[in-house]
């Protein structure tokens, strides 16, 4: 039995928190992060509850009620709180359903691109050498492509649809994941705990998934939030240009596109979906920035 143990060595400090506890301790003090979480959470809730929240069927047209202005306008009414569009569809209902589309595309596209980008980045970072050279080549090729142009071209070839647009964006937006995952993995590749796992004979998937991935995850989650916002904006762009979501689906970008003919005399038709888009993207970006702050080692919590 080792007798070298002193009471000093066996005492663990209760002052030091576990990684999760220190994160949750920093959270309430970060105001913009809280704001981001609140708005994003609210919009997610709205998207989930759209069928119950929407006062009207978002697809129901009514030629008698075209271009009704919102309630704060002199000619507005509570029947259509945010007015109606040129086909007489309730604008509030379309906006609520549009949140579903934006969030669906944003989350799924970020997930697909995260899967592709992280896989490439971790492999490049871990193996280095030729694997890294190949991945870097693919990455540079991807970076040389203008996303909007390529997405437009491919969308016009395949025809825009919800799934097509999501896949396209997912296949195009993985570059940041790769860059971040690669550099984070390079730093960890020679970490002694990775060497310890190697020396134990741990398998390659084990090392990559259990030893490396959890340690680069915070950085990837930050990238993911920013890519969600990015994908939402790109979907709106594509839909605005007519190559994304096709009518009659209520995409916010499409709503802006449909309203652009009326923007001088009925500015709310583009202002309302524009404001919604702005809020969502801002909230997600606040969330991402905040997460980066509180997960930064050494903490900005003092």
């Amino acid at each position: 039995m080792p007798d070298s143990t002193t009471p000093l060595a066996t005492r663990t400090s209760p002052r030091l928190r576990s990684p999760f506890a220190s994160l949750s301790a920093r959270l309430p003090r970060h105001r913009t992060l809280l704001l981001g979480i609140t708005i994003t959470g609210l919009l997610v809730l709205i998207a989930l509850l759209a069928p119950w929240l929407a006062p009207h069927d978002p697809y129901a047209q009514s030629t008698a009620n075209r271009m009704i202005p919102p309630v704060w306008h002199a000619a507005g009414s509570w029947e259509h709180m945010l007015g109606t569009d040129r086909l007489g569809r309730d604008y509030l209902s379309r906006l609520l359903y549009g949140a579903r589309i934006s969030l669906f595309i944003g989350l799924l596209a970020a997930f697909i691109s995260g899967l592709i980008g992280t896989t490439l980045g971790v492999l490049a970072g871990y193996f280095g050498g030729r694997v890294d050279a190949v991945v870097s080549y693919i990455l540079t090729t991807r970076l040389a492509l203008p996303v909007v142009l390529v997405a437009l071209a491919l969308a016009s070839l395949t025809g825009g649809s919800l799934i097509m647009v999501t896949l396209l964006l997912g296949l195009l937006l993985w570059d940041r994941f790769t860059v971040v995952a690669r550099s984070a993995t390079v730093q960890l590749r020679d970490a002694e705990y990775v060497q310890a796992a190697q020396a134990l004979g741990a398998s390659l998937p084990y090392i990559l998934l259990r030893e490396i991935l959890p340690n680069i995850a915070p950085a990837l989650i930050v990238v993911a939030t920013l890519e969600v916002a990015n994908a939402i904006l790109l979907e709106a762009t594509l839909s605005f240009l007519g190559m994304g979501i096709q009518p009659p689906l209520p995409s916010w970008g499409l709503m802006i596109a449909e309203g652009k003919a009326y923007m001088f005399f009925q500015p709310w038709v583009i202002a309302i979906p524009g404001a919604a888009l702005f809020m969502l993207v801002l909230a997600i970006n606040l969330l991402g920035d905040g997460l980066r702050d509180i997960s930064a080692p050494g903490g900005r919590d003092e």
Partner: protein
Amino acid sequence: MKATSVEPTPYALELCGLSKRFTLGGKMFSKKRALYAVSDVSLRVPRGQVMGLVGESGCGKSTLAKMLLGLTPPSEGDVLIQGKSITHSDQKTLARHVQPIFQDPYSSLNPRRRIGDIIALPLRLHTTLSSQERSQRVTAMLDLVGLPKRATQQYPGQLSGGQRQRVAIARALIMRPDLVICDEPTSALDVSVQAQILNLLLDLKEEFGLTYLFISHDLAVVEHLVDRLAVMYLGRIVEEGSREQIFAAPKHPYTQALLASALTPDPSLDIPDLGLGSVQPDPSRPPAGCAFHPRCPQSSPECRERRPSLPPVDLHGTGRVACHFA
């Protein structure tokens, strides 16, 4: 001498002409060059002994350790562990015989895993024990290294440096390896904690009948721990012998300088002047002849032309030294 017979070899570790070559350059504007991080190292470590390996940073100690752990393949030569060549065994078999204790306990434990999971990992990979049996073994091991049971639920970030190093020791020893590669296990710790960890290592060595290869640059630490000592310079062993021989009568000028460089607690003695002059040469362009000659106070023309060879392993003689003057 080579262990091919059924009789178990008395050596836990044998290195036979071990070399590691890295290729530098080879890009557009630079020629390819070979860097020998370790060249032609032969050593034998009898079972149950502690072999010290000292040398300044960049001399190839850690590369040597990586080869022994199977983390990087040797370019030339072979490593025999318990008489079996590591080139013919897979990583899992090797892992049962050799385990590392790394220098920096802040980077040797995954910050996102609980201590219990970290120590249990070898059991998960190498045994079919149930999770209950595993946690029993983990608790027993924690007790042996002097940590409380509740540490299993904690994360490395909640432990001090000394406690983390105890965790690293527990992980290395839970599978009862024959050989433990200690790569500067105390150099990242406070002086007050170093002694505790060293004593723990010595106690566990007796308890489990371990053999240590103890890599260090701290001669004071080595002096109290090792049975034999090898001194490395620019990838080569320049002197090897028993502790008494080397500390009482170092033969190689480099060993002499290393011993002279050890700081003493006496403030009136000042910081020792080694008389080594220039800095360590670029390992990718080692000097001709004896690699130590540009810094050696007694170098002669012969040293500049002919490299002194190190005699073959001899555990009973007066030690080996690679110097024309010894």
